[in-house]
């Protein structure tokens, strides 16, 4: 019994999930991951044959919304995956153990599965003073660096762990840094969003389990399957954008008709996520569908690129709500004034040259008739 590591399939069957539901889950995941039809079988095979994935899940400077998102996943098995089926050996929010037992649990994982376990992180890591975030008397940085030493890969859940989110927003008092900035030598998967979509989180876990390697990532280390397209390019209101139909205030005719929220500050055009496709809460809706502009929560620095209800971000150093356009117009006016001044001075100082009289020292012959 000691050596038997139950597979995922055994676990869910034991929990009363039918084989039919299990296969449905595999199919859903394959679709989310963008796999071909044979991918379903690969996922099913992996989940039936491979032992559970040992996972250590840390919470650092964060609000736990990633965990909250996860436990609201659309498919019941999705929640099961992390909550008890991928051997969540250590998860501060959800584990029963506390104190010494909790500490022992994650140390046991590190000792038992070197090179096999996955470190999942919610939250950013303070670097200004490490003591801003301590668990069991040790700083977040120490805990993380020790844990990643022998891990297989790191999954950074949400914007905090991927880009620092609100804690790293200016002026960033704790010197908050995302995971990939404080560790090195291990692959980091940034599962962006504030929080990430539950099905996206499940998809990443299933991918790790099925293929034993990290999914294909984009330039910012986000899984391409979920973050390769802009919210804007997958938005059901996109036709209104191309037609030039825009909402101008939240209670106007356009808002009622579901026009594009571009002018209300929608960050869909600069945000890469699956909100327009997978949607939220059992695929019920997503912000834009509910009439609210996207705030760009899966992009680095989205707090500093506000205000949320303004299309162009304010320019740092020029005060609130000073956009590039205001600065541009200001410079334009200054230039026009400069030009006018220069033109006046030219007509006074270069009078002689203009009326054809030879300037001092030049040998211009003039004839006047």
């Amino acid at each position: 019994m000691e050596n038997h590591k139950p597979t995922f399939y055994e676990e869910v069957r034991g929990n009363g999930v039918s084989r039919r539901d299990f296969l449905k889950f595999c199919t859903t995941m394959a679709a989310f991951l963008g796999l071909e039809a044979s991918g379903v079988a690969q996922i099913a095979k992996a989940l039936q044959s491979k032992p559970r994935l040992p996972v250590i899940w840390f919470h650092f400077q964060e609000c736990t919304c990633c965990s909250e998102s996860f436990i609201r996943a659309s498919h019941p098995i999705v929640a099961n995956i992390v909550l008890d089926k991928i051997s969540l050996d250590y998860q501060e929010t959800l584990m029963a153990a506390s104190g010494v037992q909790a500490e022992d649990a994650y140390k046991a994982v590190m000792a038992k599965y070197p090179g096999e376990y996955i470190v999942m992180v919610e939250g950013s890591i303070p670097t200004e003073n490490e003591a801003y975030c301590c668990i069991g008397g040790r700083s977040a940085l120490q805990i993380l660096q020790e844990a990643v030493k022998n891990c297989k890969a790191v999954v950074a859940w949400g914007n905090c762990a991927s880009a620092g989110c609100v804690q790293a927003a200016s002026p960033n008092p704790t010197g908050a840094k995302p995971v990939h900035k404080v560790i090195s030598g291990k692959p980091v998967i940034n599962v962006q969003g504030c929080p990430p979509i539950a099905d996206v989180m499940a998809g990443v876990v299933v991918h790790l389990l099925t293929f034993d390697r990290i999914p294909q990532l984009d330039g910012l280390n986000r899984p391409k399957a979920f973050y390769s397209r802009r919210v804007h390019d997958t938005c059901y209101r996109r036709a209104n954008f191309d037609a030039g139909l825009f909402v101008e205030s939240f209670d106007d005719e356009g808002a009622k008709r579901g026009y594009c929220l571009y002018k209300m500050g929608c960050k869909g055009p600069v945000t890469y996520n699956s909100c327009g496709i997978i949607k939220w809460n059992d695929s019920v809706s997503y912000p834009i569908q509910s009439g609210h502009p996207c705030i760009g929560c899966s992009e680095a620095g989205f707090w500093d690129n506000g205000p949320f209800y303004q299309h162009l971000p304010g320019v740092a150093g020029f005060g609130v709500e000073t956009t590039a356009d205001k600065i541009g117009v200001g410079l334009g006016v200054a230039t026009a004034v400069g030009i006018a001044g220069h033109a006046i001075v030219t007509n006074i100082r270069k009078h002689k040259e203009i009326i054809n009289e030879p300037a001092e020292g030049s040998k211009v012959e003039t004839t006047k008739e």
Partner: protein
Amino acid sequence: MRSRSTNLREVHVWEMPVRVYHWINALCITTLCITGYIIGNPPAFMKGTEAYFNFWFGTVRFVHFISAFLFFFNFIFRIYWGFTGNEFSRWNNFIPLKRSQWKEIIDVIKVDVLQVTNKQIDSIGHNSLASLVYFITFLIFLLQCLTGFGMYGAMSNAFLPRLFAWVVPFLGGDMNVRQIHHLLMWGFILFALIHIYLVFYHDYIERRGVTSSMIGGWKFIEEDVVERHDKQAEENQKG
């Protein structure tokens, strides 16, 4: 009738490819600034209609993208021409590496910007200050191409835009890229304002026909300036 006879020589300064480049560039920049501004700040002049009747905003974006491709290839051509064109269009005009260029920059500031002295500027093509400013605009061209194609790359599978896929992660995300692209647009507008004013200014003061030189290619240059230029060129060949 007022007239005067002066000792002027006609000099072929701007070759045909340079002139064609200039006007394509002017056209592209005008189009890109107007469409770009509309894209950043679209007028919501339509109400109470449905999306399937219209595509005007899509068309504006399409025009922007087409102009951007034209602008990009035109820019590449100009760089190429900087290595094969005549002495006035050569790359080394634009980067002030020589002492004489810096000296002329200071002279131009004194003579034409501050107007505190009155001296003849010897350059027949661009003066050294103008060249330096053009070099800066070339850098802005480059940045604008990088950020523009960087944003475009995400919705394209074509080879050229994909070459710029690294720009977005490099600058930390689309939000920053868009902001830079938008700020630089104002750089083009300010440049155009000053550029057009200065063409008027130089034509008015120097009467070398600088405005029409970008159409016909020829400038009227004072005889002594041409002689000094030829002598210098001869020396350079010997040395």
